[in-house]
């Protein structure tokens, strides 16, 4: 069974995000970019399936600018077999990403798609579910653990009340939550090896998908600032203050 892993290149999660003065977006100039952390978990899960002999091939796909090939390279260094870059220099909204991925899925015919539950830039949490719907496939979102069976998979999901296990028929889409696994660091030999693995480049036009943005971002602004408060001497003073503030 082939596993397809969509990954996104985003601002590194350690970088402090700055909103541009003209409110046109956030400042991406000279900012460290990395693979979306949830997608790293997805790559790790797919590679583990291959190591356990349950996946035959791990194909990584990214939609983004030329530099997204570096993100694909990172996944190849973790153990994925080959990459597909759908090159686009414009913003591609979640629904358009899902449509692009649908065409890739139809060409590649994977038995399982694993991707992050959300990207930490736009925090949309949509692509996995949209892709599943467009394909008419079932989904297991916010995955905490995966048990792959014959023709089906049991996916335990992190939900608001605790954990829920669903059984889905394959093919299916799974989106990862934080505790599915801990992604590995790529070793130097594997980084070298990854340089020789193939990355196929395509455009949205090649795939016949219209990716014109449909949402209009009117502005991006700073959130309301919270001033730091005061440090208090002890619990007595704290409770006095909270009482005065009407919080107790």
């Amino acid at each position, binding site marked *: 069974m082939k596993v397809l892993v969509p990954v996104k290149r985003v601002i590194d999660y350690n970088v*402090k995000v700055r909103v541009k003065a003209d409110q046109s977006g956030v400042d991406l100039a000279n900012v460290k970019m990395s693979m979306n952390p949830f997608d790293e978990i997805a790559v790790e899960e797919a590679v583990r399936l291959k190591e356990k002999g349950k996946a035959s091939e791990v194909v990584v796909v990214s939609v983004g600018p030329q530099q997204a090939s570096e993100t694909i390279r990172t996944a190849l260094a973790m153990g994925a077999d080959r990459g597909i870059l759908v090159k686009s220099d414009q913003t591609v909204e979640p629904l358009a990403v899902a449509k692009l991925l649908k065409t890739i899925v139809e060409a590649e015919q994977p038995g399982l798609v694993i991707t992050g539950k959300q990207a930490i830039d736009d925090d949309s949490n949509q692509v996995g579910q949209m892709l599943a*719907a467009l394909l008419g496939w079932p989904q297991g979102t916010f995955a905490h653990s995966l048990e792959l069976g014959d023709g089906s998979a049991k996916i335990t999901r992190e939900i608001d009340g605790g954990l829920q296990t669903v059984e889905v028929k394959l093919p299916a889409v799974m989106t990862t939550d934080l505790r599915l696994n801990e992604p590995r660091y790529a070793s130097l030999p594997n980084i070298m090896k990854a340089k020789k693995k193939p990355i196929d480049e395509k455009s949205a036009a090649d795939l016949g998908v219209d990716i014109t943005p449909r949402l209009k971002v009117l502005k*991006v602004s700073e959130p309301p600032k919270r001033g730091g*408060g005061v440090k208090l001497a002890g619990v007595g003073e704290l*409770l006095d203050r909270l009482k005065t503030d009407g919080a107790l």
Partner: protein
Amino acid sequence: MTSLVIAEHDNATLKDATHKTVTAATQISAPVHVLVAGENCAAVAQAAVRIAGVEKVLLADAPALAKQLAEPMEALILQLAGSYDAILAPATTTGKNILPRVAAKLDTPQISEILKVLSPDTFERPIYAGNAIETVQAPAGKKIVTVRTTAFAVAAEGGSAAIENVTAPADAGLSSFSGETLSKSDRPELTSAKVVISGGRGLGSAENFKLLDSIADKLHAAVGASRAAVDAGFVPNDYQVGQTGKAVAPDLYIAVGISGAIQHLAGMKDSRLIVAINKDEEAPIFQIADYGLVGDLFKILPELDEELAKRGYK
């Protein structure tokens, strides 16, 4: 112009995430209809009719809907979608699971986790873990929106809507429920509690985490946690407050042994008052806390517990 709100419930009780989503819906497209989909959930529909601003409650009662799995919910909502100008769900794990499927099938972009309705087609939503706020305008046509419930008030009671039964489409059998482990607690729910006390890595162990319990009981508080505490196995995942866990905005948030990583702040910085207890006075949490206590939490927590008892909190 009518909105459809997908109700959040457990087949027995209607959650107030629904009431908050109704508030958002009335600002986009009124009147509001509420869809209660589940199994043996008539009591939930009875509760939904009382929400002010709700004109009609649609009740879909079927075994396949018992756990509101995404695939049968998608089919049900698509069957109803034609009559609505807006479809909303609370941004809970249930809403987030279902609604993008509906949006994709309707070929309509979804707007996730709105914080504010500026006009019926223009919304504010957080991006980059709440470090930026995006003002976004949806195209003409249906609006498909999930709602950050902490940002909207609970719609009042006092309505008297009619209940209409709807028949769910046959389940395609793509997915099935096979079990769940739900955290049981007599405390209020994290996302609707007036007071939340959360612990972080600083608590050091699952055993120590229980130090929060006695204080939580006295304050009728919910107990939450940082990602670090959940990853370390101190408490289950459903305690997690943050960018990828739950967003909370109580009157009072007490952060104990939490340094204040960006992703945690994203889930709690809209709280009215924030108290931080941490031994590191440079911890980022103090930059957003209204009140800080710098010191050893293992000394401060018992003191706080005792002081509360002295003042008559039980």
